[in-house]
């Protein structure tokens, strides 16, 4: 087994999905909004990046996608952020009206509709086939270093930036208002804050980060296929968040690190037959489910990572 390669893979994936976990933690852990469609931002960012940077479709190939603007990578990344913002605006306005599990279902529904659109609309990005071999940006400029390492470093820097920004928000008065939204919305409204505004703002503000993480994911996989952007991404991120203890950005990162380590270690085991590999992949899914159940029940990391409630509960 190549431990160096494994380490690079883990760092890259933890950084990319770590940003998505942080986004979810801001929405659920801090503001109490249950988003079961977080993959939609991720996918919207990824596909926007691809459509902006891809060469226009050639007549000769089997490609069916209609748009390819051939823009530079930084423009694609910026476009991904804008796509995240637009998608958050679309999925964010129901949050003004819905609470709890109703919000969970609506966000889930939006993500599924978007996923179906990607799968079925051939002219958008080749449907089920997707786009394979998406070029990785700045290859020549980075030829002095192994590209995988450069990407891992870039993803890690992105994660650190997101972490620092989110931590600053959490520790600001604004962050305390968000926690009040989670703990006692009535008290927040009574003290003269507009809870509706906070709900929409936290969606609008955090979604672009998840969308940009989608662009990083394209650089890592070089694939834009619908199978990579299913509800499983949402569930993995939820499992990570619950593992680490929601409400703490540090906990969110511990959670996603454990999940990715677990997945990659299983994937690194060599299997003799396809059937053995298939059983291992299935048991991996079962084990993730079991972990989620166990951690929800006993919450072993909660006392380590979760910040003590600042708001004293009355009555």
């Amino acid at each position: 087994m190549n431990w160096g390669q494994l380490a690079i893979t883990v760092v890259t994936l933890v950084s990319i999905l770590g940003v998505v976990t942080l986004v979810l933690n801001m929405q659920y852990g801090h503001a109490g909004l249950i988003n079961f469609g977080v993959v939609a931002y991720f996918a919207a960012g990824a596909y926007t990046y691809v459509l902006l940077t891809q060469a226009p479709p050639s007549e000769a190939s089997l490609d069916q996608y209609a748009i390819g603007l051939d823009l530079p990578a930084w423009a694609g990344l910026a476009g991904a952020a804008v796509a995240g913002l637009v998608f958050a605006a679309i999925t964010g306005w129901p949050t003004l009206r819905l609470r709890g599990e109703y919000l969970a279902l609506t966000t889930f529904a939006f993500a599924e509709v978007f996923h179906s659109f990607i799968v079925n609309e051939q002219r958008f990005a080749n449907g089920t086939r997707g786009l394979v071999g998406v070029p990785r940006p700045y290859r020549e400029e980075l030829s002095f270093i192994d590209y995988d390492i450069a990407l891992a470093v870039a993803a890690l820097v992105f994660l650190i930036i997101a972490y620092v920004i989110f931590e600053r928000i959490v520790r600001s008065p604004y962050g305390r208002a968000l926690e009040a939204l989670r703990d006692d919305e009535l008290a927040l409204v009574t003290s003269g804050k507009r809870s509706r505004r906070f709900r929409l703002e936290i969606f609008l503000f955090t979604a672009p980060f998840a969308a940009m993480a989608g662009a990083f994911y394209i650089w890592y996989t070089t694939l834009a296929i619908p199978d990579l952007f299913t509800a499983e991404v949402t569930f993995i991120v939820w499992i990570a968040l619950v593992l680490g203890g929601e409400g703490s950005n540090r906990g969110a990162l511990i959670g996603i690190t454990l999940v990715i380590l677990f997945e990659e270690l299983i994937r690194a085991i060599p299997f003799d037959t396809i059937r053995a590999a298939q059983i291992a992949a299935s048991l991996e899914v079962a084990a993730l489910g079991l972990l989620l159940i166990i951690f929800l029940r006993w919450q072993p990391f909660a006392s380590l990572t979760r910040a003590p409630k600042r708001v004293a509960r009355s009555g």
Partner: protein
Amino acid sequence: MRVTQLIVLGLGTGAFLLIATLGFSLVRRVEGFLNIAHAELMSVAAFVTWYLNADLGWHFVLAAAIAVVVTAFIALAIARLIYDPIKHLGPPILLISSVGVAFLLHGITSAVIGVGIRSFQIPRLDAWNVGGVLVTPYRIALLVLAGLVAVGLALFLNKTRTGKSIRAMAINKELAGSRGINVNAASRATWLLAGLLAGLGGVALGVLGTLTTDIAFQQILVILAVAIVAGLGSLYGVIAAAFIVAFAMDLSLLILPGGYRPVIAFAIVIVVLLVRPQGVAGSRPELTA
């Protein structure tokens, strides 16, 4: 003619959705949370039936009956071992936990069954041509089964002691308990019933088409849609909602490619949640769930 054919198709889809959603809605009403693992229970029932029927060669009806009973007890065991201890943490945590249960069941079934397409050993019956519209006997049987299930459930909930205590619990658990209703027995009956209905739904799934281990996930999306259109709490609304969603999905084939069927279901969900969150049959909004 095409429209008539699709309406007939929709009747079958609606019957299946009715069976599949009733158990889900019952749990939502009595236990108070959305059990995402409900569809995986359907998949368990379908594959137990498949194993007994196609692998061991048992008669289909016997295999299906055993599978449905086994599924009912699995549902009860999951409730006691996993959901009951975390009940105090509230519906959202139970919902997330049920995603874990869905993963667990899905992982186990796909590890045991493996990839590939399976089908039951049942006779292939030719479709009847009724005035130019094709009707398959199995779809008619399913429609009859759905009718029996709906009537049976209504009778059970209205006429039997356990049924009445389930209804009392659904309205107010504390009050039911303090009035001497055996809350534990009612909860046990709820889970057995939900598992039974999920089992029937799983068998129906295998009769109508072929089985893969991924089939459950696609179903939970539509079940959620039906449950929301019905109003999350209402059982009678489920009957109307199952057929509304089924007709909308099947008639959409007139204007959209088949891949868009789930999108139709979810478009309905989004519209209903935003316009009439209490559902077609619900009376009071429960927005602060």
